[in-house]
């Protein structure tokens, strides 16, 4: 199928062809939903949040100047919509104390995770991710799952690139800490 650029569809929508917006929805719905899901954690709320983000983007499409990529601009909308939804409902914010892991413990955890079956690994990773703060989940997701560069993540979460790097480092450490505690409970770690 002939895929045209985002700017082509944006121009079409601004000319009055609302149907062209469906192309943008089709292209970004998975990423929007996935990001919402990571922040909110509940399927129904995440779906509603992703839809709201698309409607917000549609309403303010004429303010999109094209200085950043549409993807970055849209991810910023998804991020703010999801964060405000979490704050509104005050759900799923389970902030646990940070686990201070030594380098050896981190290496052990990494090896233990590596030895799990892919299904079990997904379950444990999902559980560990759930225990992180929304901001930490977003940064890890955008960096490791969506493969976005640090600069792009910085403009989505409105932080400096160096702050994102610091947060990324801490979030990763916290994730390993959560995995360590989960695997210890399961008996996969001594």
């Amino acid at each position: 199928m002939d895929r045209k650029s985002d700017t082509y569809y944006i121009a079409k929508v601004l000319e009055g062809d609302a149907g062209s917006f469906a192309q943008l929805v089709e292209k970004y719905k998975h990423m929007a939903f996935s990001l919402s899901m990571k922040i909110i954690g509940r399927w129904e709320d995440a779906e509603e949040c992703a839809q709201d983000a698309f409607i917000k983007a549609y309403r303010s499409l004429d303010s999109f100047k094209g200085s950043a990529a549409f993807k970055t601009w849209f991810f910023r909308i998804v991020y703010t919509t999801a964060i405000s939804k979490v704050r509104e409902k005050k759900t799923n914010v389970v902030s646990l104390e940070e686990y201070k892991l030594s380098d050896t413990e981190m290496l052990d955890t990494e090896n233990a995770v590596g030895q799990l079956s892919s299904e079990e690994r997904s379950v444990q990773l999902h559980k560990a991710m759930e225990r992180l703060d929304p901001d930490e989940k977003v940064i890890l997701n955008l960096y490791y799952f969506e493969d976005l560069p640090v600069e792009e993540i910085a403009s989505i979460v409105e932080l400096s690139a160096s702050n994102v790097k610091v947060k990324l480092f801490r979030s990763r450490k916290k994730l390993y800490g959560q995995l360590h505690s989960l695997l210890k409970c399961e008996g996969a770690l001594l």
Partner: protein
Amino acid sequence: MKEKIYKMSKQDKLREFMKGLPREEPSQDFTRKVMDRVSLEMKKTSTVYQPLISIHGWLKIAFGLLLLGIGVAILRNYFPGGEAPSVLQPLYSIDFTQFLKPFNLVTKALTNLSPTFLTCLVAISLLLLVDQVSVRFIRR
């Protein structure tokens, strides 16, 4: 250096683990749902009606007519015998009594009505006025 390599490899491992996570999928009819809401948005914007003549427009027209009336009155006062210069003749010849004719007909009809009916009419009109004032200003 060794530590740096270790950190990098760990980062890569985490990427590998994260990539193994299944991507959460939205509902099958996600696009349709969004587009339904988009068409609702379009309807919302298309039902905005604007009057052909705004309130300011009507005020300007009323002000213009008032000025015209005052102008003609002054003109008639200045040239009582109708000897106004030819340029001002069109203004001079405007007969305002023609505009007042419909009102005269109404007042004539009203004088033929009974005093009881007229009192009721005035009372109902006042009640309607009070109702409108309360709806527009007080209940806000």
